[in-house]
């Protein structure tokens, strides 16, 4: 079946502009995660959605970052007033139930470049 998909695959924007990144999780997966990976770095947790529960936003680096998950499926990560330090690959992952032993399935990522 289809895996996690993300769009766009690449995004180049100017400093100060807003961007929206989209994630389509695997059908049936109730948990969805957003991570950020800077060049040569590990994965930085951003936000976690599980079913209808309130999302865990503890990883969002500033109030310029927000995310929504509509209908328990597709998620959008929004970065307002982008800064150059926001340049990174943004990865989305989903899992069946977000349980403590669930495998996370990652999408291909969106490479964001802020000029």
């Amino acid at each position: 079946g289809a895996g996690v998909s993300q769009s766009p695959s690449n995004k180049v924007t100017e400093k100060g502009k807003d961007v929206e990144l989209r994630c389509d999780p695997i059908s049936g997966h109730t948990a969805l995660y957003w991570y950020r990976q800077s060049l040569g770095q590990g994965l930085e947790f951003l936000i976690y959605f599980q079913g209808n529960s309130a999302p865990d936003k503890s990883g969002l680096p500033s109030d310029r970052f927000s995310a929504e998950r509509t209908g328990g499926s597709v998620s959008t990560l929004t970065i307002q007033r982008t800064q150059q330090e926001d340049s990174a690959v943004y990865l989305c992952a989903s899992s069946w139930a977000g349980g403590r032993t669930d495998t996370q399935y990652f999408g291909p990522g969106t490479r964001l470049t802020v000029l």
Partner: protein
Amino acid sequence: GQQVMQIPQYQHVQEGEDFTTYCNSSTTLSNIQWYKQRPGGHPVFLIQLVKSGEVKKQKRLTFQFGEAKKNSSLHITATQTTDVGTYFCAGLPNTGNQFYFGTGTSLTVIP
């Protein structure tokens, strides 16, 4: 705060040599997962360890979880060029559902 460190950051080996990456957590973990990311790709799940002292093998890969559940290792025997990539550990603390990823070890295999 919670931290998961990995060493080394980079490793170059000749094809056929062994390779080990180590993962250390500042706090006790409930479980630990390992992922592999090929160059230009996304992380792919390899394995999960849950029990103290657990050892699991996948062909040439051996994964260990420490007795105190604060460290883990991945050992590759007789590396091949297909092993190239970055290996990440991801630790789950005893509370919460957030996995803390290590900084990763980038493996280069020289033919």
